[in-house]
């Protein structure tokens, strides 16, 4: 960090205050940071990958029940949330660009808009969850999924146990994603404070860059969650 002891003249030679002394040049410092972030994101891929794998297995086994259950979640809200996250990804990439080019106002505005979009996402998620609680579609003692027809199979009804599996996966996957969003909001609040204090320069804005990588990753997870959970068998 540029404000730490590395910059306070411990080195006798002329030293770039934005450059930690174990790096040869700013480019190498940036590459090292984003490489580290990508390794972390690789572990996140495997973390979510296990859930996607469980989802694929059960979707294959109980396709009709999953389709019936998927039809009860609100596609419009899901699609809106996808658009909200895509817009937030744009503002994140604008924030990174603003940090690279020393545009303080754009940086701060982009960070604030990103956080607002993140909050809108969580709010819409909350509305969706509320619907599920009202309809007794939350797995547990009061779960109820009686006489819900299987799409494309007239006269057949979904097995409530299999539908419960779908909703378990729905809540765990979207819940874990929402948790990532909440963590992301925390990171972006910190970025906003740092940006407000003017800590980021074109030479050193590593937190904006790797915080942005995190946000985009969470967006990518949603890009897959939306069609898998909301759009299993929607045609009339």
């Amino acid at each position, binding site marked *: 960090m540029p404000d730490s002891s590395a910059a306070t003249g411990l080195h006798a030679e002329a030293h770039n205050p934005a450059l930690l002394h174990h790096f040869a040049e700013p*480019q190498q410092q940036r*590459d090292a940071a*984003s*490489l580290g972030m*990508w*390794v972390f*994101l*690789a572990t996140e*891929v*495997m973390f979510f*990958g*296990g859930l*996607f*794998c469980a989802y*694929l*297995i059960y979707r*294959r*086994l109980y396709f009709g029940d999953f389709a019936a259950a998927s039809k009860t979640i609100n*596609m419009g809200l899901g*699609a809106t949330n*996808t*658009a909200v996250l*895509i*817009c937030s*990804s*744009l503002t*994140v*990439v*604008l924030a990174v*660009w603003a940090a*690279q*080019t020393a545009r303080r106002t754009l940086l701060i505005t982009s960070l604030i808009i990103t956080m607002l979009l993140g909050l809108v996402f969580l709010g819409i998620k909350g509305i969706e969850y509320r619907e599920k609680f009202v309809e007794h579609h939350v797995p547990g003692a009061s779960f109820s999924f009686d006489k819900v027809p299987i799409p494309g199979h007239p006269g057949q009804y979904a097995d409530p146990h299999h539908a419960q599996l779908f909703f378990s996966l729905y809540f765990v996957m979207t819940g874990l994603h929402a948790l990532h969003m909440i963590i992301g909001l925390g990171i972006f609040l910190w970025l906003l404070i740092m940006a407000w204090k003017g800590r980021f320069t*074109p030479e050193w804005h590593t937190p904006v860059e790797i915080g*942005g*990588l995190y946000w*985009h*990753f969470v*967006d*990518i997870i949603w*890009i*897959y969650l*939306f*069609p*898998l959970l909301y*759009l*299993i*068998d*929607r*045609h*009339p």
Partner: protein
Amino acid sequence: MSEHESAKSPLKGYFAVWIALLVGTGVTVYAATLDLAPYNAAVALGIATIKATLVTLFFMHVWHASEKLTKLVVIGALFFLLLLLGLTMTDFATRGWS
């Protein structure tokens, strides 16, 4: 991004990717309402993968990454994910009892 790249503004590209992602979302929703028999899932996942690739390459700057190791980590993560999904699904798809 290296210094010489910041000379030309990447903004146009960012907005183009943003539009493409929004269009992709619209197409996914529309395609889901069509009866494509067994291809609904393939179309949905195909569009999602295109969108994810756009985000990774351009928003996450992997396309312009100066460090090849970064690209290796991205490909490595993808490879192991496909190993997990691919081997599990081939197992489940070829079991007589399932």
